[in-house]
């Protein structure tokens, strides 16, 4: 399910890791039409993967099927990517439960660190029983 208006596009997928490919394909289309550089494209793709796997892993009971919407809003030199889902309250930025341990990188905990490194702003809100997680990337 895709929709487009000026500078604002969205796609809705299921909470299944396999659906990350649909988000990538959506980004691919956008990157072509916006003429994004490879560096910006790679950062956005990485941010999408890291965010999606976090939401799928932590915002839902394992065997329940839910929608996750991803909206991309584009203005001059700025891209906002917003993820919206109706899972249990889950703030990816609240990483107190999971810290990155340099000696135990095989245990994970790297995702949110990567997201913070490659995007310029991150915000989380709980609105109307929904998780709303927004990432902003500035570029020239």
């Amino acid at each position, binding site marked *: 399910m895709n929709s487009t208006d000026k500078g604002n596009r969205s796609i809705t997928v299921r909470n299944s890791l396999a659906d990350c490919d649909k988000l990538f394909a959506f980004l691919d289309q956008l990157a072509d039409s916006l003429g994004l550089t490879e560096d910006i494209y790679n950062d956005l793709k*990485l941010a999408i993967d890291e965010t*999606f796997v976090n939401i799928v892993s932590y915002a839902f009971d394992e065997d329940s099927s839910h929608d996750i919407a991803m909206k991309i809003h584009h203005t001059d030199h700025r891209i906002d990517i917003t993820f919206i889902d109706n899972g249990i309250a889950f703030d990816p930025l609240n990483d107190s439960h999971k810290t990155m341990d*340099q000696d135990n990188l*095989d245990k994970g905990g790297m995702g949110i*660190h990567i997201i913070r*490194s490659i995007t310029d702003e991150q915000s989380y809100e709980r609105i109307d029983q929904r998780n709303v997680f927004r990432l902003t990337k500035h570029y020239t």
Partner: protein
Amino acid sequence: MSLSITITPESDHGKRISIAGSLDSNTAPQLQQSIDAEINETVNPTVIDFKELDFLSSAGLRVIFKTKKIMDNSGGRFLLVNLQPQIKKVFEIIKALDGMHVFKDQDEMDEYLAAMQNKVKEGE
């Protein structure tokens, strides 16, 4: 995007795992399966060849670090070669390159291996 994995013998008792495409949250389990089947304490060195890899996320990194742990525990060498800039960047973000053997290309890795062999010979 998909991931393709090719495993070939490497000098002595080693194995080279060449990965192509996208190593992401969706494809990382495939690599984990191959590693589980192919890499154990008798393998030395383990070489991960990133030459054809276009994309890497933290799910893929976890598999890489799990493999490194197997090699660290067995005293085997763990070598990374042919990292493209966007792949290297992900390692750099999590500051994981310190203490790892990373080579920009095959020549650099061959030089290292030759130097290691000379050291062994000198020690004999």
